[in-house]
């Protein structure tokens, strides 16, 4: 039976090292299968998050050969024969152990977003064409790969000033909900720091749900912020409208 060499970064935030394993390959096998094989045969305490194994829950995010990916969707036969596979935890969040990182910061950011607030006059009929673009944002499985790859978070570590692509997607889903009546524009500009994003589209590239994060969520939200704060007509209107 064919075998593949997998190197897994194991350990804690204080000390980690790569360990190498030989894993037999079956047709259609994915990296997560290989990690499970390592668990049951060589390293029973190897820490990894996973749930659905079908790219629906977003638990098994990792960096495979340097690329942020879901391990359940990364097939071993995507790699060249003889190529080593190297698995690291996602880098942007502190490591707890092995492939498991502390992503609790994301849950804290989420709590700060004004929830869906239906307009008082909502009739609860909605038409599919109005919903199509919002449903795209609702596909997010919270794998946090976009957060992982975003350089504002990854390289500049601006977690205290920037919410990250995942939460721009959430806000876009709320702001563009046909029946929502709240405004999150001030939040986007100040607390969520949307201005820090310089639309390099790294988030869009890694999204396993193929959400057009930059084009469909972030850019329209940036435009709304600009309209609200910098458009002279809107400002004039606000001055006299008392808002």
């Amino acid at each position, binding site marked *: 039976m064919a075998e593949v060499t997998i190197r897994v970064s194991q350990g804690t935030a204080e000390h980690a090292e790569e360990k190498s394993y030989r894993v037999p390959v079956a047709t259609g*096998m994915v990296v997560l299968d290989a990690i499970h094989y390592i668990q049951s045969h060589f390293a029973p*305490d190897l820490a990894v998050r996973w749930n659905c194994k079908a790219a629906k829950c977003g638990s098994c995010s990792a960096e495979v050969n340097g690329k942020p990916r879901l391990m359940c969707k990364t097939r071993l036969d995507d790699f060249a024969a003889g190529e080593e596979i190297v698995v690291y935890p996602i880098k942007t969040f502190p490591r707890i152990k092995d492939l498991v990182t502390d992503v609790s910061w994301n849950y804290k950011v989420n709590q700060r977003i004004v929830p869906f607030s239906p307009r008082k006059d909502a009739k609860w009929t909605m038409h599919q064409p109005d919903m199509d673009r919002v449903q795209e944002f609702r596909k997010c499985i919270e794998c946090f790969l976009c957060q992982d790859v975003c350089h504002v978070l990854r390289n500049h570590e601006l977690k205290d000033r920037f919410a990250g692509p995942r939460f721009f997607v959430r806000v876009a889903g709320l702001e563009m909900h046909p029946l929502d009546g709240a405004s999150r524009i001030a939040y986007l500009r100040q607390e969520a720091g949307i201005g820090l994003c310089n639309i390099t589209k790294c988030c869009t590239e890694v999204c396993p749900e193929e959400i057009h994060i930059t084009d469909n969520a972030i850019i329209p939200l940036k435009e709304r912020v600009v309209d609200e704060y910098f458009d002279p007509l809107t400002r004039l209107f606000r001055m006299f409208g008392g808002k």
Partner: protein
Amino acid sequence: MEGFETHEQDVLVIGAGGAGLRAAIEATSQGVSVGLVCKSLLGKAHTVMAEGGVAAAMANVDKQDNWQVHFKDTMLGGKMLNNWRMAQLHAQQAPDRVRELEQWGALFDRTPDGNILQRAFGGHTCNRLCHVGDRTGLEMIRTLQDRAVHQKVPVYMECTVTHLFKAGERACGVLAYWREQGRFVVFLAKAIILATGGVGKAFRITSNSWEYTSDGLGMAYNIGAQLMDMEFVQFHPTGMVWPPGVKGLLVTEAVRGEGGRLTNKKGERFMERYDPKRMELSTRDQVSRAIYTEVKEGRGSEHGGVYLDVSHLDAESVKKKLPSMYHQFKELADVDITKQPMEVGPTTHYMMGGLRVDAETTATTVPGLFAAGEVAAGMHGGNRLGGNSLSDLLVFGRLAGLHAAEFAKKNREQPRFSDAEVQGATRKLLEPFERTEGPSPYEIHEELQDTMQNLVGIMRIEEDLKKALEKLQELRKKLRSVRVTGSRLYNPGWHLAYDLNNLLNTSEAITRSALTRQESRGAHTRLDYPKTDPEWGKVNHIISKDGEEMRISRSPLPLMPPELQKLFEESH
């Protein structure tokens, strides 16, 4: 001796899938303090994987639909073994629960006139499933999750509950450990809601995640709660069969709801022979048996399944209505479902049996302990209809939250349990670390999965079931010497070593019930008793702990009132 972090709430909810979240939301709005404990990160529970839809008689597509029709479909699907009152409450309340989700921000697919769109599904006589493409569960869990978060429900993530404790007769607290650090934590509560799901991980081929280890069933059984109808395990007809790594992964029933056809290797639409009237939209028990039979008799597909085909449908509409199936097959199996057939076969999916509960309040037989969702029995009888699980979670999750809150308000004092009990439990949890030799938990788990898969699967026979019981005893012995290596820090091997206790208890309950029920009904098929026996249709199986023994008894089905009975007379 290790000190314990302790939390105290009026209502503690264990499990953060649809039922647990809905229960926590309801209890919070009743004005009591609530805590929500879950094994994974929030939003990753199994509900997220539900695909096809949530069943509710809203009559947006089929005007003749109403709660009576939904009730009748549910009872007939469950082979009349359902608790009629649960099925009635479910059918009556499901539409309000779905509307409520929409008011909390959920976005279901729409009809041309702007209402919630409803699709056809097996065993439902009307187009009844409200859906979002084939990712309905994600929409539902995200909506509930955001609602609970903004209600400020404290959520204890990646925290596994291992023991329930009682003071006198009343359940009043739990022991848990933080998966991250392996530290123990105690939660005290005036009422506890179990929303811990099912037992799929006892079987080899399953659509369920690692979380499905029947923790709630095992823990509640240990403190004296009664289990019911444990022989009824649903094998979903369509799981992936190829490649090996994805074997068992769910292929939503919505594929058939949208017009998918099942064929064998000769190209025959074989459902004509098993259920000519409903064909592919027959109930799951029937379709699973049909597929099993086709494969067994040599008419299966290349990799031991059958074909499920949507290539005759418009490719763009397939991608729109079944986007995750399209991607799942394309990425994991190199199959373009708009052009080629899928290969599918039965996969362990859902537990109809579970904790015996009161229909109105979801109270288990232990005071202060409530149960909702898959962990509870009764609602689905001998076979669950697709789409009835998501609605079950919402309806009974809410009722559990409501009644647990009421219970907590009526019983204001917090009962205490002894420190010695907690110490005893933690000692047991840590024992596997002390051994220098012994089998690995993974090895025992694999043996258990093979045993249940091969001997207690879709088709059962006395000889196999007896063999399974012997094997389970052997595995119990083996588990007593299980060895765990490494530290307590995020250690999946250690976690599994304890989960196996619950898996073994539940597996034994399934096997004993299956052995005792000498008939075939719904999801329970006995090769040696192929007929449905009307006498068995009058009773539920009750399982309880009697010392170290498992006791099985029968309890007559609750009597359906005449006005509901009439619904069935009209059609026959």
